[in-house]
């Protein structure tokens, strides 16, 4: 019997260890698995390497994970945003490492990690500081830089619908990095708005096949990062059991 449904976000993140590499989905708040991230803050795993396009905003979600001192290194393309309070300060004081990667190279390195490709060549970043120290190679008169794949111990992503096999669909541009990250991790944990019956998702419209998914947690009414930020919320302060479990249906 294949049933990837897990009772709670806490159960889902329980096996994350100190020093693990995590991919966390989302482009800004779109696709950010905020309930899973908050469960990881409760869990407390430290010295993490986190791969995400950004570094979160305000003092909730990814930003709160960083503020809580759990992240040793960020691999991302755009570590500052309008509401980015936490990362800049830690970075300037040398308390967090940063590997800056062009956004498309980041996506392709993740895709390569999931596709069994240890390295590939791209024109992106040739002649810029981000190509320094990397192998250059000429193909048919053009220079390319060699980029290595990225893999993770866990991916934490957010989806719209799932069935018990772990087949996923996403909502609009919240799809972003999730399908690639789901492929590149040993364990992919998914918070999903709705778990449906097998066969409810048309096989033609499955975006992430279940083979890439390890655990599903239904969170029917996920919190919205921008609203929490707007309301000046922070995590773990907002961690009353009631609030966090809102919308989490036990299965």
């Amino acid at each position, binding site marked *: 019997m*294949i049933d990837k449904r897990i009772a709670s976000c806490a159960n889902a993140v329980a096996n994350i260890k100190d020093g693990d590499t995590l991919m966390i989905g989302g482009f800004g708040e779109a696709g950010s698995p905020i309930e899973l991230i908050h469960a990881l803050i409760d869990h407390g795993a430290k010295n993490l390497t986190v791969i995400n396009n950004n570094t979160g905003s305000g003092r909730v979600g990814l930003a709160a994970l960083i503020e809580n001192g759990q992240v040793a290194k960020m691999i991302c393309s755009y570590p500052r945003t309008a509401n980015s309070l936490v990362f800049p300060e830690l970075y300037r004081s040398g308390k967090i490492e940063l590997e800056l990667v062009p956004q498309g190279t980041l996506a392709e390195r993740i895709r390569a990690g999931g*596709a069994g490709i240890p390295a590939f060549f791209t024109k992106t970043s040739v002649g810029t500081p981000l190509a320094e120290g990397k192998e250059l190679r000429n193909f048919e008169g053009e220079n390319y830089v060699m980029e290595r794949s990225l893999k993770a111990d866990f991916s934490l992503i957010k989806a719209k619908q799932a*069935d018990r*096999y772990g087949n996923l669909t996403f909502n609009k541009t919240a799809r972003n990095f999730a399908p690639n990250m789901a*492929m590149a991790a040993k364990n992919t944990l998914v918070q999903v708005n709705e778990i449906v*019956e*097998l066969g409810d998702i048309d*096989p033609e419209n*499955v975006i992430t*096949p279940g083979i890439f998914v390890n655990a599903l947690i239904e969170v029917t009414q996920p919190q919205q990062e921008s609203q929490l930020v707007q309301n000046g919320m922070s995590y773990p302060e907002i961690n009353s059991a009631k609030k966090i479990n809102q919308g989490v249906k036990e299965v």
Partner: protein
Amino acid sequence: MIQITKKHDIETVTRIGWSREQMAQRCAQDIEDGSYVNLGIGIPEKVAQYVPDGREVIYHTENGLLGMGNSPSADELDPDLINAGKKPVTAIAGASYFHHGDSFAMIRGNHIDVCVLGAMQVSQAGDLANWSTGDADAIPAVGGAMDLVAGVKTIFIITQHTTKTGSAKILTKCTFPLTGQKVVNRIYTDLCVIDVTSKGLVLIELAPGISFEYVQKRTGATLYSAASLTTNAAENTSNKAQS
């Protein structure tokens, strides 16, 4: 294995060891619940029908489907829904379609648990040759075999223990062009089950009525006997085969 005995001009054909169906059945015991499995053409295809009840297994076909089902009935038949052997199939509830790039990312990226394939030759190091005899006149054709053996976590081989002419197929070193190096995990033949280990080929189970020596004689590499070697009583299994 078919043994032909000539006596007073009367040929007696005796089947010794497991039949094709029994080989598939034996292999199927090792397909775990919840596995993602890719089955090659031929005997490997038969494995699906023998997976023990209560195990849920998802079948991948590299042309772009996860959740392959049975053969279609006449009115289910769609020439656009085929398996890697280009035969019509169906899709189960919970299936998904994807393009070749994604399908082989699934394979190459170590996401498929088990692949069951046929073999021309297997070496004691786990090298596999199953796509070409190297014959200059042959039309070379490889399909997805090299991708599967390079990328799938566990490779099971189902093969007759020797060729039709009685030559060993399990060898110190393959003589045919390789499909992959050090890729095979376990071999199911009509005579036995062999694990490919870092110490060499370890015989873990014998077909009914078959002895270690009988197998070794028909194998082109040294076999080791597993401490837990299973010997199946002849009568027991022939009963099973009839049931």
